[in-house]
């Protein structure tokens, strides 16, 4: 894409809708505008669009169409899966839930709410490299564990969890396993059967689909409770007239995203290496999250002595859109819970930068980042009292990994 207006390096926040997805949506507004629940031709056409999209999305994950439920996005899917899996467990007296320390807030805050309702939550450590250890999941499982939920790819540091193994451990113990694949779907191959996934959440706007639509996969045979009561939509589990254009757009975007995925990832991986090698040349800079077990389109750095929000603002002045786990960008005073979970001290976690990119970014985008970033870091450090005091002692912090 590389619109002239910006260098967009925030693809993990959201993406531009693809032309193909947009084209798939348009007829649903204008021609097939009927209500899928209606009996007449207009309704039947709309229903066909929804069911065709469901089948195509299911096929992308080796699932059955009847196992896909449309939602308003990833957060809704996470809330639904976790709350209802907890309710299923509670019926059998199981009130223990397991997750990881650096989940998205859609998961963590849902778990906190459940804790107030009397559930017990264990958060697995993610260690310095941002990875859950399967043996630690095994050790945490109990007789009364109702659900394990671990994200496929972390949204800040991009680390890829050993989902298949985590799923196998849960399957062997008869515990439900949910994974938030918001940062993985469309970017990595996912096979719900081979990877032992019972439930998974996804969101269309992370893979060049429209905003406001996502899905929850629920393996056949799991009697997950309803999310919204009303009409018979989504087999009665999530009532309300379907967002037909968005659903059609999601299916088109997902298929397009997965086409030639290996080639796209190889290209993005090359850009990642190039950016990483050059940015780590900036003194006192560290890469957050495992160097290799991360998605091709994510890089996350800490620059000693500077704060994340000011870094973003200065990059923004240069026309570069990026993101940070900085407290100041999220409106709280706490630094990123993800970076704290990786064991970074708070003062270091304040200075993080996330660059997220994909096949729609050009080499010129990377050039621009490499042209501007070192100067911005330098400028902020020149006005930082923290940097000046620690400057003499550079080696303590910033040595490149490896």
């Amino acid at each position, binding site marked *: 894409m590389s619109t002239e207006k910006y260098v967009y390096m925030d693809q993990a926040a959201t993406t531009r809708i693809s032309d193909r997805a947009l084209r798939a949506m348009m007829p649903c507004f204008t021609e097939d505008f009927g209500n899928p629940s209606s009996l007449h031709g207009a309704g039947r056409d709309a229903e066909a669009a929804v069911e065709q999209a469901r089948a195509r999305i299911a096929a992308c994950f080796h699932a059955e169409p009847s196992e896909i439920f449309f939602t308003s996005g990833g957060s809704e899917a996470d809330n639904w899966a976790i709350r209802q899996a907890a309710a299923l467990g509670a019926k059998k007296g199981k009130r223990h839930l397991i997750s990881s320390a650096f989940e998205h807030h859609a998961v963590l805050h849902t778990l906190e709410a459940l804790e107030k309702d009397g559930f017990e939550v264990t958060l697995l450590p993610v260690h310095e490299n941002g990875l859950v250890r399967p043996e630690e999941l095994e050790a945490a499982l109990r007789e009364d564990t109702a659900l394990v939920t671990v994200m496929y790819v972390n949204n800040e540091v991009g680390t890829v969890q050993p989902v298949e193994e985590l799923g196998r451990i849960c399957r062997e113990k008869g515990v439900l396993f949910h994974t938030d694949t918001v940062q993985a779907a469309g970017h990595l191959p996912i096979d719900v059967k081979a990877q032992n996934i019972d439930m998974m959440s996804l969101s269309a706007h992370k893979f060049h689909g429209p905003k406001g639509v996502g899905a929850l996969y629920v393996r056949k045979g799991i009697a997950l409770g309803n999310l919204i009561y009303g009409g018979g939509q989504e087999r009665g589990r999530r009532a309300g007239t379907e967002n037909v254009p968005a659903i059609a757009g999601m299916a088109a975007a997902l298929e397009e995203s997965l086409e030639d995925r290996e080639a796209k990832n190889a290209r993005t991986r090359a850009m990642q290496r190039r950016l990483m090698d050059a940015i780590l040349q900036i003194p006192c800079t560290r890469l957050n999250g495992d160097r290799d077990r991360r998605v091709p389109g994510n890089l996350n750095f800490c620059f000693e002595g*500077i704060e994340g929000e000011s870094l973003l603002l200065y990059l923004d002045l240069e026309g570069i859109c990026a993101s940070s786990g900085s407290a100041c960008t999220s409106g709280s*005073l706490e630094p990123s819970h993800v970076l704290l979970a990786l064991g970074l001290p708070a003062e270091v976690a304040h200075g993080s930068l996330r660059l997220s990119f994909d096949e729609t970014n050009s080499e010129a985008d990377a050039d621009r980042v490499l042209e501007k970033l070192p100067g911005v870091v330098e400028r902020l450090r020149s006005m930082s009292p923290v940097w000046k005091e620690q400057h003499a002692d550079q080696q303590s912090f910033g040595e490149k990994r490896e």
Partner: protein
Amino acid sequence: MAMTYSEKVRDHFAHPRNVGTIEDADGVGEVGNAVCGDIMKMYLKIDDGIITDAKFNTFGCGAAIATSSMATEMIRGKRIEEAEKLTNKAVVEALDGLPPVKLHCSVLAEEAVRAALEDYRSRNGNRSGT
């Protein structure tokens, strides 16, 4: 939920005034801490009860940089007694407002000025005592 800064705030973080240090400062104040993500260090040159120069170094967000910049502008050329009355509210008003979650940054600017003036007074007291 993106936070929007006023034009004045944007101007002051993009082009901060009075960034730097003063080697022979008459008063230096440092407030905040890195764990919270904000540190301001303020340097003052004071001559005959008048602040003739003010400079700052700040580790912090855009609002922290902008409030530091504005605060130094507001106290330069002022008498100590006037500068002591600088409030965070006045700094915020001069910047045409700050998002609510950023108001603590302006408090830090007020505190940094106070701390530098206190340092000046304590040094001055010591000097007059010898």
